[in-house]
């Protein structure tokens, strides 16, 4: 039969997941003074190159691997940090399903997802606190990644601890990365509109108060 579909009252525009060419970014004053090249400055993105990269590890049950994203030739280093100050790397992380959790630290041995009471931080040797701040694969699926971080040259090493839970002999952990390489050019005199539009990228210490 005849059906008249009413005109929608509104529509939703979903912005792209990744920074695009022409976007503005701002590094506020909470960055340490050692980052003078970017601290308290505004940049316009001149070019972007999204680079896909899959990492995988087969790990025995109740064991873990510290995946260090910083650059170097260490056994656990994946070397995806930028080497130039004019490069910003926006990284999306997704996981294929499996029997494991991920725990995030920056710098090494300092977990991000803590609570305020003194002992309330992730501890993989404690059956209960193993799950405190532990992200499951479904939290950021491979095809719809939801964990995102930003890397610049000389940032402290970001560590992703991958822990295989009990119940399997081994697990294969597949980590899908999309590394959005962004070329930045400084905007020396940003307008008020630029300042409002710019994406603020804060130093990681703001996560701890």
């Amino acid at each position, binding site marked *: 039969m005849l059906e008249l579909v009413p005109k929608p009252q509104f529509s939703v525009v979903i912005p792209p997941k990744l920074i695009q060419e022409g976007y503005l970014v701002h590094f506020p004053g909470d960055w340490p003074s050692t980052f003078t090249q970017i601290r308290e400055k505004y940049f316009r993105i001149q070019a972007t190159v999204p680079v896909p990269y899959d990492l*995988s590890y*087969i790990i*025995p049950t109740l*064991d*873990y691997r*510290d995946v260090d994203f910083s650059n170097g030739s260490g056994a656990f280093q994946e070397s995806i940090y930028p080497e130039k100050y004019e490069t910003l790397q926006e990284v999306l992380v997704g996981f294929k399903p499996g029997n494991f959790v991920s725990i995030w630290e920056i710098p090494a041995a300092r977990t991000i997802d803590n609570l305020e009471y003194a002992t309330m931080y992730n501890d993989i040797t404690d059956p209960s606190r193993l799950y405190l701040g532990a992200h499951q694969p479904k939290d950021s699926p491979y095809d719809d990644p939801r964990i995102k971080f930003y890397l610049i040259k000389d940032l402290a090493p970001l560590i992703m601890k991958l822990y295989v839970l009990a119940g399997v*002999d*081994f697990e294969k952990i597949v980590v899908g990365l999309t590394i959005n390489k962004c070329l930045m050019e400084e905007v020396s005199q940003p307008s008020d509109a630029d300042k409002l539009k710019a994406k603020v990228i804060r130093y990681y210490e703001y996560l701890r108060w």
Partner: protein
Amino acid sequence: MPSQIVTAHTTAVQAVAERRNAVVIPTSMTIDNDAGAADRTIWIQDSFTPSVSHGVAVPVATVVDRYRVDVLMGDVMVLNAADLEGVKCLGALLIDADAIDADCHITVGYKHE
């Protein structure tokens, strides 16, 4: 989905190679022992070398039995995805048998995930 045919052998035969960013899921297995010489036991095995981890600094090549089935002489057994549910190979998928028999054919259907 692709498939591969191997014959029964006491040295495990690789049916599917390892893919670094995926696991191998067998979706079907047909064991044609119609002309076979005897009753046969068939295993699906998983062959891989683990990564360096906190607990294992020097990993060694590992083979794990993932599935076992007995097939009578003169019989053809067909296993579908439901029969093989939960079977997952982290590395290469191997087919092993309790005897060498060129007349016992094993067809494995599989996908990568």
